[in-house]
């Protein structure tokens, strides 16, 4: 295998190095990539879409179709992880481990239907248990709302600063994963159940594709946000700006839900009882 690897690498490297001779120099402003399509984006995007962040304008308006399918890719990955790993709950014996907080003694309870353990001195622990430090738990609990607020800012301010739906969605998802890591998976799932994030994910993509279909139904081309001018009672250019915001919200929702979904499936191997 090593020999095959070296041969493939040498051949591919040779082809790539051969092409290196004709590349334009780095950061040359007169290279074909800078002269053909992108000057129109830079010069006209503000007057055509009223969004100062050119990357967001191109991402969500000019090439919005790509972005819709990109959101579908991440949704598809979430569904695949669910499809592969999720095992239904009914066929496992319920074994739980508890730890007496004062003495540190752990007990293992095979839970029948008659005796659930809900005493105050016992805390429920995972199989691979590590002490959940009070400092970590409290710090994360305080930080998580601010992280989410920042994520919402990133989504909403994507028009004017670097940001947008994907970035904000990932930060939102990361805040929930932080909850799952600092406390445990059950706490995070208690805040946002599996069914909720499995339904939020397609709803996010639905917002995106649905906006496009709405434009289609109003007689314009698919994803032509100018169609929204009639519904929102603004001129077509501002309607584009609002359309971009709507689809960014959809993207943020979908990405957040998928990140948490993939994390819960992978970290608990599909059983959803205990995470990392």
């Amino acid at each position, binding site marked *: 295998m090593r020999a095959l690897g070296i041969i493939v690498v040498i051949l591919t490297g040779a*082809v*790539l190095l*051969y*092409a290196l*001779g*004709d*590349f*334009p120099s780095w950061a040359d402003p007169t*290279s*074909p*990539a*800078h*002269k*053909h*399509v*992108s000057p*129109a*984006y830079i010069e006209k995007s503000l007057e055509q879409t009223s969004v100062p962040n050119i990357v967001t304008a191109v991402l969500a*308006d*000019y*090439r*919005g*179709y*790509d972005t*819709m*399918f*990109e959101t*579908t*890719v991440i*949704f*598809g*990955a979430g*569904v*695949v992880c*669910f*499809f*592969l790993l*999720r095992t*239904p709950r009914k066929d496992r014996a319920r074994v739980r481990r508890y730890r007496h907080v004062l003495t540190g003694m752990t007990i293992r309870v095979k839970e029948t239907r008659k005796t659930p353990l809900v005493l105050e001195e016992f805390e429920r622990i995972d199989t691979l248990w590590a002490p959940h430090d009070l400092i970590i738990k409290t710090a994360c609990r305080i930080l998580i709302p601010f992280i989410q607020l920042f994520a919402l800012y990133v989504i909403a301010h994507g028009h004017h600063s670097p940001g947008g739906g994907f970035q904000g969605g990932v930060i939102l998802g990361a805040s929930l994963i932080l909850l799952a890591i600092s406390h445990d998976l059950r706490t995070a799932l208690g805040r946002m159940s599996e*069914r909720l994030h*499995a*339904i939020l*994910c*397609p*709803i996010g*993509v*639905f917002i995106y*594709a*649905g906006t*496009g*279909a709405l434009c*289609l139904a109003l007689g*314009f*081309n*698919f*994803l*032509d*946000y*100018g169609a929204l001018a009639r519904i929102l009672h603004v001129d077509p250019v501002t309607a584009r700006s609002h359309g971009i915001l709507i689809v960014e919200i959809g993207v943020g929702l979908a990405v957040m839900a998928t990140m948490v979904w993939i994390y819960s499936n992978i970290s608990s191997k599909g059983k959803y009882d205990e995470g990392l």
Partner: protein
Amino acid sequence: MSQHFPALLVTVPLLSALLISIVGWLYKRLCFPIAVAALSVTAYSSVGLLLSVMHEKEILYRLGGWEPPWGIAYRVDHLSALVLVVVSVVGLLNLIATQKSIQEEFPEKTGAFYTLYVLLITGLLGIVVTGDVFNLYVLLEITALTGYGLIAMGEEHAPLASLNYVYMGTIGACFYLLGIGYLYISTGSLNMADIASILPGLYDSRVVLAAFIICMVGVCLKMAFFPLHTWLPNAYTYAPSAVSSLVAPLMTKVMIYVMLRLMLTVFTPVFTFSRVGLSDSMVWLAVIAIAMGAVLALAARDMKRMLTYVIVAEVGYMVGGAWLGNRAGMTGAILHIANDALMTLCVFLAVGNIVYKVKGYAFKDLQGMFRKMPYTMSGLVAGALSMVGVPPTCGFFSKWYLISGGVQAGQYGFVAALIFSSLINVILFFRIIEIGYYEPFGADHGQGSSRVRTAEAPLTMVIPLLIVAGGLVMMGVYTGDIVAHVIAPVVPPALGN
């Protein structure tokens, strides 16, 4: 409404995939009807699109209302319309035929399965209809990801086979992405027609040549062209039978469509055939692919694996035909895309029926099947005859075009490989027919289940199979019309005679 067919074609399956995903959590029995409705709308739109493309020359649809190359555009010409019809019809027939086996294999996750199924079809439809190279990459990845997930839920070694497919498929997609990056750095555009108009000034550039080679290697990885085919036999053998009869006819053929698109539309035929200088080598590589596919199929231990090696050989037919560089060869390759999709669907559906009833796909599971499952076996025989190339099934006509193209181009190695492969197909399929007809139905039939009372497969599984078998003959009978009205306008006149 009909001017929005190109957008509807991809939007309706996408929206219904999302709907199925939500409904799967609430009420499972609705998933199948929604999927059938979505794919029926798609099949109807694709047939409508084919008819309107035959009237006008080509349909251009601007997404988001922006002019290409600043926005993404759909360009539907005869080739795209033909492959669209093939993809949507195959997807619909397979969906109806495999409903029972899906219910049996994935009782709790039907929502997720149908979501992935419809997303796969969406990705394939989008690949065929798009006119933008980067959009093609994103859709390629949707198709690939859903394919990985669907294949991995098979039996025993399916996750490992799917993981190997992940590795090789990702390398292929990354090479394609790199290739279009090279195209971008030299032309500055991502629209296929736009690149084709800028490229003639850049024929001597090393970057364009490297872009062509890298894109071709990436696409060859994804279409399982020998020797980059090693992921295919394991992945398609261990996949669930409902999934193998979906991906086997479609994925490799759509990749061949991508290769044709790159050869003919993006890098114009002048560049592909005269400047690159690789036509002969590609035809010889195709000859090796056909020969190795046939030989490895002979050595296969069970039915499904044998059929996957036959797919490898068929890919060799189409690649060789496309690179012959004349009208007959290109016509044969394009015709073979449609024909091979139908043939492969036919044989895989038949194998799926047998697996549903007998729970095994080794050769000994076929014993006495002619008496027990006559309709399924007659469908299998029809598919086998088409793969061998017996008139009036469609397989004969596409082989005819390929052989006459090979003779015209003087590539007698290619002709010899085609004939060799047909002879090997005769051996392979007649072996199956002999086991099914002459050997008695054993008492220890099936893998492990000793008291299997085998009867014919249920009606929903048999009727689509018979429809496809009938379609094979109809496609053969109407070949002349198809070639004249659908394929001939696509083959560029620059290819000469």
